[in-house]
């Protein structure tokens, strides 16, 4: 006697019918196309940007002067400009954002917290041009008058605005991380006689550090890729920043250079290729930031998995 067949002899897809198969194919296509797009973008960047390395001597690309009209294509001032604006933004946004996140997650009463959290998430969606506009009209004169700089269009002005843009993301992600720290950690620390502040700083924040680091990295990512705001308020003078004093002088960033010059450059010229080289540099920088972030998160995860096993 043969046992009853538990499995039908048709393959699963045939059993589920055509709709299943089509949907599966569509999802698969969507997934692969995302990867395909990234690869195509990189290939395009490389195709347009790499010729510049043959047209301009690499030493010149690392020069300190950016005067495309006179064939000076030194990228250092632009890289320096981007870095100093981003650094300034991070220095402002991280302590401020972390403070805000801690306040919302740990200190604020429930009603205030339920009011602040969505408010900050709305801020994250603010178009950057609006911020840039406010920067030009409000922040720039303020910087000029209070700091006594010759112009209000400085790296610092850009940093403040970028910090403002990075803050909502940073606060929101960091607050989620703090909020997901188990209540029992806090109880345990408080029962050991820790003050509320000691509990926050030495238990809750360290326990949430993976999420907090992710928040910081996302903030940096947002800041370094931002174009519009920065172009509007940093003065766009391509001079090499030397030291922290340059924070209060005009600078020009990588992104602003591409945005400002791409429209008026001859297609296929040296200048055109160099602009794409700038794109490659930007891509590499944000790639490095993302890689660092995921390496940090991955390492933490591995460590905690090891601990829990």
């Amino acid at each position: 006697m043969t046992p009853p067949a538990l499995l039908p002899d048709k393959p699963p897809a045939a059993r589920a019918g055509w709709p299943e198969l089509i949907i599966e194919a569509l999802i698969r296509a969507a997934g692969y196309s995302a990867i395909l797009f990234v690869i195509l973008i990189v290939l395009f960047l490389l195709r347009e940007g790499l010729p510049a390395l043959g047209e301009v001597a690499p030493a010149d690309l690392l020069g300190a002067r950016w005067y495309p009209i006179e064939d000076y294509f030194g990228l250092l001032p632009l890289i320096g400009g981007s870095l100093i604006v981003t650094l300034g933004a991070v220095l402002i946004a991280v302590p401020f954002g972390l403070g805000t996140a801690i306040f919302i997650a740990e200190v604020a009463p429930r009603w205030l917290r339920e009011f602040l959290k969505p408010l900050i998430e709305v801020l994250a969606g603010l178009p950057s041009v609006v911020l840039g506009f406010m920067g030009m009209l409000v922040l720039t004169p303020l910087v000029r008058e209070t700091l006594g700089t010759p112009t209000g269009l400085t790296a610092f002005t850009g940093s403040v605005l970028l910090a403002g843009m990075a803050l909502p993301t940073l606060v929101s992600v960091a607050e989620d991380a703090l909020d997901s720290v188990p209540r029992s950690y806090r109880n345990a620390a408080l029962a050991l006689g820790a003050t509320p502040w000691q509990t926050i700083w030495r238990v809750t924040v360290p326990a949430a550090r993976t999420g907090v680091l992710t928040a910081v990295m996302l903030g940096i990512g947002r800041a370094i890729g931002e174009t519009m705001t920065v172009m509007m308020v940093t003065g766009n003078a391509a001079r090499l920043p030397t030291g922290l004093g340059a924070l209060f002088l005009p600078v020009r960033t990588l992104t602003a250079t591409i945005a400002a010059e791409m429209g008026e450059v001859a297609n296929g010229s040296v200048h055109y290729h160099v602009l794409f080289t700038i794109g490659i540099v930007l891509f590499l920088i944000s790639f490095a930031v993302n890689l660092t972030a995921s390496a940090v998160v991955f390492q933490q995860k591995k460590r905690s998995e090891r601990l829990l096993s």
Partner: protein
Amino acid sequence: MKIVIEHLSVQYDDGTESLRDISLTIPANQITALFGPAGGGKSTLLRALNRLNDLVDGVRVTGRILLDGEDIAGPGVNVTALRRRVGMVFAQPVPLPMSIRQNITYGLELAGVRERAKLTAAVEKSLRAAALWDEVQDRLEAPATALSGGQQQRLCLARVLALEPEVVLLDEPTSGLDPISTAKVETSLQAIKRDYTVVIVPHSVQQAARIADLAAFFLQGELVEAGPGQQLFLTPKDQRTNDYITGRFG
């Protein structure tokens, strides 16, 4: 008398009452067991003793709790200082995400102890008191989360003992542990009561009967009966207590 509780009531702002007019005297250097079915207010009482109820929104506490004659339930109490005198071990062991040694020294460092010799001595002393020293002495730098559940719970006890509190509160400290680990925890409780006042919410009537010098039976926010463990478990005065310990309900 270490702790005197007078007419203590705990109410939530939605009107539900967690404790109703409790009066109880907790003697020093003995194990006091608060037992009864779930929702009886045992944990609430425990958490009132070190003011952890403060962390819950909308709790109203009335009545007095005297610790060495000093009211600790009212406003104006230095809660942080109080929690150093009244330590607590929770049902879920919560090792902080650091090494075994750091888990012990953590509370001391918060309290401002810096000398290495003192810290090292405290680590050994408290781990011995919690009956954990033999198992971890050669791996003090290992992460505390790598310990087994029973070891973690004894580590949490050691962490509290390191602060040399006067009172140790334990909220179902053995609820997640196997019988052998439970026995170890109970043994160390018997040992530490020489130096501390121990208040425990045991996780079963049997455990209460095993370790209680003084037992208090809670039912729906009310203290039904309190008395020496021997007497309460053998000849309870109240019918409800009798029903509960003989397993008629709960």
